[in-house]
Each structure stands twice: as structure tokens, then as C-alpha cells.
């Protein structure tokens, strides 16, 4: 296990390097280096900003040197300063916004995991029943529904018309006066809609995936053998089959991270949540390039870490991978 973990960890470095290269290329190969040239006439970018950008990226030096210098700064987590009037380091701005985004995404993944697996298993076990058919319809709709539209409808229905749930921000305006537990409750009430909206796409995909996986496993030889030996049907389904069908889900959870992080831009915009996605959106509108680049790199690194964790969890669960036979 330890060698496997080490191997995966080392394998991350080329990927990290690649990520920084792509980000760097994006900044520089975009037509006419738009981050710098052409901004002289952009009222949103002052001449000091351009100077700041020049000095941060060392734009007068050759490309490879620029890249190397940028990489050195990234290595010590220096993402430069924001263009906005506060000129704060990008890292500080991101870190203060990150918790909300992580909360939403982690909760969304838990919801996906806890809801999609039972749905998938039930659909497979009762294949072609009315439950399976209803779920199939839901899955197709879940795939096709624009999450922000679902969010809008829920805001309208549950928030505006029925006044059940808050529709924006993470705190009620009376938050300061609340007791500790009231504050927690208020926080989670504000997260219900965003988490549900973030989870909907993954929910559809995951339950479909679980259903297919379960159907495949149920047809496997060892299940037939178990059945022939008279093992009770419930033991077969929920102990023998489920264990193996659930494995690929771990990888899929890892793969769904980029989608979740990317989706946080829309969810946080829709519900006015002060998270990283919203910061990214504001940075784009303000042409705050250092923040945009910083978050792009951080988002990719977060994805990488998520994938690594998923791989390790998989190896932990499946001895074949751990021992290098997978």
C-alpha cells in the first residue's frame, strides 16, 4: 500500500508541471498577450496594474525565464497580488472564500454518494420494475436539466412563493444576534438549495453507473455459484454483489470533482454565496488576471488532489490494485 501511495504521489509531479505549463501558455499564447497589450485602453485596468503585472510575470524577460520565475513563486504559494483596489495577495483572497466552496462540494458529494447508490442498487435488483422505470426517467432528466434553471425554479417555488428556504447568501441578516446552534442551523439552511443544485447532475450519473455496475456483477459467475450453493438472495445482493459493484464508484467520485468545482461558479453566482467560484466570476468581470490565473491553477490542483485521494481509496478497498495487479 505504501509503495503504491508513494508511486501515485510521485506521479503527480509531472501532472502538476503540465498544469502550470498549460496555465502559463493560456496567459501568453492568447492572441496578442491580451493580459498586457491592448489593455492600455481598457478603463477597468489602470496603468499601475499593467506595471504590476509586468513585474509579477517579468514580461521583459524571455519566455522560459518567465515561466521558471513564475513556477518558483508558485512553489511557495505566491500567486501575486490582486488587481482590485485592495491589492491583497491572491492566496489570501482565495483562502477566505474556499471554505464555502468546499462545504458545498463535500456535502454535494455526500448527498450523491448516499442517495445515488441505494437508487442504483434498487433499480438493478428490481430491474424493469416501475421503480426502475421511474428512476430511468429521472436520470435522463437529471442529465439534461441545466442546474441553474433547477436552482431558479427552486428559488421561486421554495424561496419566494412558499418562503421556506433562504435563497441567497450564507447567513440570515439577524445572524449576529443568534446563538451558536441557531447559527449552525441557519448556515445549513442556506446550504440546502445550493448543495441540492450542485448534486443533481452527479446524482443522475452516479445512480445510472451504479445500476449498470450492479447488473454486471449480478451476472458474474461467482454470484451464480453462490446462488447455486443456496446462499440467501439478500446476502448475495447486499453483501456479495454490492461490495464489488461499489468499487468503481470511488473512481467516479474522483472524476466528478472538476465538474463540481467548475459548477460552483454558477451555483455561487445564482445563490450569491461568497465562495471561490463567485470570486472567480467577479475576477473575470473585473479583468483581475492574477486572481483568474491563481484560481485556475488552484482549481486544477484541487482536482488533482481529489483524484489522488480517490485512487488511494480505491487501492485501499481493492487489494488487486494495491499489489500492482490491477
Amino acid at each position, binding site marked *: 500500500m505504501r509503495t503504491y501511495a508513494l508511486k501515485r504521489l510521485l506521479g503527480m509531479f*509531472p*501532472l502538476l508541471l*503540465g*498544469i502550470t*505549463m*498549460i496555465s502559463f501558455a*493560456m*496567459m501568453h499564447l*492568447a*492572441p496578442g498577450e*491580451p*493580459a498586457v497589450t491592448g489593455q492600455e485602453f481598457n478603463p477597468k485596468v489602470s496603468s499601475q496594474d499593467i506595471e504590476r503585472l509586468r513585474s509579477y510575470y517579468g514580461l521583459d524577460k524571455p519566455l522560459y525565464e518567465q515561466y521558471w520565475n513564475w513556477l518558483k513563486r508558485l512553489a511557495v504559494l505566491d500567486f501575486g497580488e490582486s488587481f482590485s483596489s485592495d491589492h491583497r495577495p491572491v492566496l489570501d483572497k482565495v483562502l477566505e472564500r474556499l471554505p464555502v466552496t468546499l462545504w458545498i462540494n463535500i456535502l454535494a458529494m455526500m448527498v450523491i454518494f448516499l442517495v445515488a447508490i441505494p437508487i442504483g442498487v434498487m433499480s438493478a435488483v428490481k*430491474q424493469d420494475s416501475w421503480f426502475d422505470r421511474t428512476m430511468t426517467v429521472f436520470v*435522463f*432528466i437529471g*442529465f*439534461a*436539466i*441545466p442546474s*441553474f*434553471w*433547477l436552482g*431558479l*425554479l427552486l*428559488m*421561486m417555488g421554495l424561496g*419566494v412563493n412558499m418562503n421556506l428556504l433562504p435563497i441567497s447568501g450564507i447567513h440570515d441578516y439577524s445572524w449576529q444576534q443568534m446563538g451558536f446552534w441557531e447559527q449552525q442551523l441557519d448556515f445549513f439552511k442556506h446550504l440546502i438549495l445550493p448543495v441540492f443544485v450542485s448534486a443533481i447532475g452527479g446524482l443522475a450519473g452516479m445512480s445510472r453507473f451504479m445500476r*449498470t455496475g450492479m*447488473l454486471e456483477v449480478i451476472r458474474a459467475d461467482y454470484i451464480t455459484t453462490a446462488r447455486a450453493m443456496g446462499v440467501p438472495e439478500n446476502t448475495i445482493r447486499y453483501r456479495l454483489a454490492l461490495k464489488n459493484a461499489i468499487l468503481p464508484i470511488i473512481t467516479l467520485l474522483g472524476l466528478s*470533482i*472538476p*465538474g463540481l*468545482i*467548475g*459548477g460552483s*461558479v*454558477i451555483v455561487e*453566482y*445564482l445563490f450569491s454565496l461568497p465562495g471561490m467560484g463567485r470570486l*472567480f*466570476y467577479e*475576477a*473575470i*468581470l473585473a*479583468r483581475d*488576471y492574477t486572481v*483568474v*490565473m491563481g*484560481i*485556475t491553477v488552484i*482549481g*486544477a490542483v484541487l*482536482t*488533482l488532489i481529489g*483524484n489522488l485521494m480517490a485512487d488511494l481509496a480505491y487501492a485501499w478497498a481493492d487489494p488487486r490494485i494495491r499489489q500492482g495487479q490491477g
Partner: protein
Amino acid sequence: MFDYLKQQPLMLVGGGIVLIIAFLAAFAPWLAPYDPTSINVRDILMPPSWQHWCGTDTLGRDVFSRMLYGARISLAVGFVAVGLSIAIGVALGAMAGYMGGRMDTWIMRSTDMVLCFPTFFLILAVIAFLEPSIWNIMIVIGLTSWMGVTRLVRAEFLSLRSREFIQAAESLGVSPMRLIWKYLLPNAMGPIMVSAVLGIAGAVLVESGLSFLGLGVQPPDPSWGNILTEGKDNIQLAWWLSLYPGLAILITVLGYNLLGEGLRDVFDPKLKS
């Protein structure tokens, strides 16, 4: 033909939706009851009625007409973006799968790297450097969605190359280009088409999301996404601005997804569970 289609309900329904939406988009100028950009201050935020089937927006423009024209833009973005991503994906996947060796390693490692980026971040970052316009969106979506196709084409090529008819062609001295164009690609066409159709659905969703954020199709050009932005801003006043455009996106994406799934069943009946 029709008997065959009856056995493929997914394709029938999906294809039907796709054709209807395509028809509405193609004939939008003749079907639209109003000019989609004509402002009418006397009819601001009118609820749906016989005059305005889907109501009017904050500038008194007819939402139904705007949605018809929005269909044109969404489909155009979907088709161009997917065309681009298929072109890139097929070229890279064919190179990796046909040449193998170091070329394969390089292409697949680069693909893994691009896959690490949350695609939506990547798209938004590029939009931030360029200006949001319909062309830029098409190109950016295309440039950020080729990875799946690359992997798919590579896998298809690898498995095809071990087949006897390809080996026979190779041993007869068929040139590499001819082998790729005449033997390998046609046999990989099924999965490529499936992923193209599903890709259109994805691109329509991404475009609507971008336009919803105000970073996609810019007003006064109508798009399903930017009508929904108005819906969000007027959520207390005008439910119709939020309801209908989203429904249009849902139905369109559903149609392409169903068609894609149906095609998959046709090309690979084994997978049908």
C-alpha cells in the same frame, strides 16, 4: 425503416425532438410572431397571453420570438463547438492510437493534464482573456472538450489494429494515411457519432450556463441563457422569464441525449442492458 425505428424508442423520441428543434431554429424568421429585438415600452413584463405566448421581458420584447432565435444560436454553438472538438479529438486520438510508442505517451499524458482542469474554469478563464462573443464561445468550448473523443478514438484504433482485416490491409502494404482514412476511421465512426451527438447536448448546456453568467451570448442577441438571467433578476415579478427558456434547454438537451443513447444501442447492441 419505420418498423426498425419502432424498436428503437430512444432514437425515435430523441430524433423527433432534435428534428423539431432544428425546424424551429431554421425557420425562426418565419415562425416568430414578433421581431426578437424590437423594444416595446408599453408591454413590459407582460405575463403569457394569446398575444405573447411566453410573455414579454423587461424591455417589452416577445419572449417566444427570442426563444426561437435563441435556438438558432444554441444549436449553432453546439454544432461548431462539437465539430471542432471532434476534429481535434480524432486527429490526436488517431495519431496516438496509430503510431503508439512515445507519440502515444505524449498525447495521452497531455490529455490527462487538460482533464485536470475544471473545464468550466478553463472556459471562463479563456473568455476572460478574450471577449465574450458567439465565435469565441464556439471555439473555446471546442478547444476544451476534445479529451473524451481523443481517448475514445485511441481506444478504438488500438482494438481495431489487432483485428485480422486491418492486419491483412497492413501486410498488403496499404499506406498509413489510406489505412487510417479508409479502414480505421470508418470502423470507429459509430462511437464517434455517439459522442458527437452527446457532445452537442453538453455544448448547449455550457453555452446556456455561460450566457446565464453574462459571459456568453451578449444582449441584445437572444439566447436561452441570457433570458434566464433576466428571469433571475426579476424572480419576484416574472416567473415566465425563468420557466420557458429553461424548459427549452431541458427538452433540447434531452433530445440529443436520447438520440445519442439510441445511436449507442444501434451501434453496440451488447451494451443494451
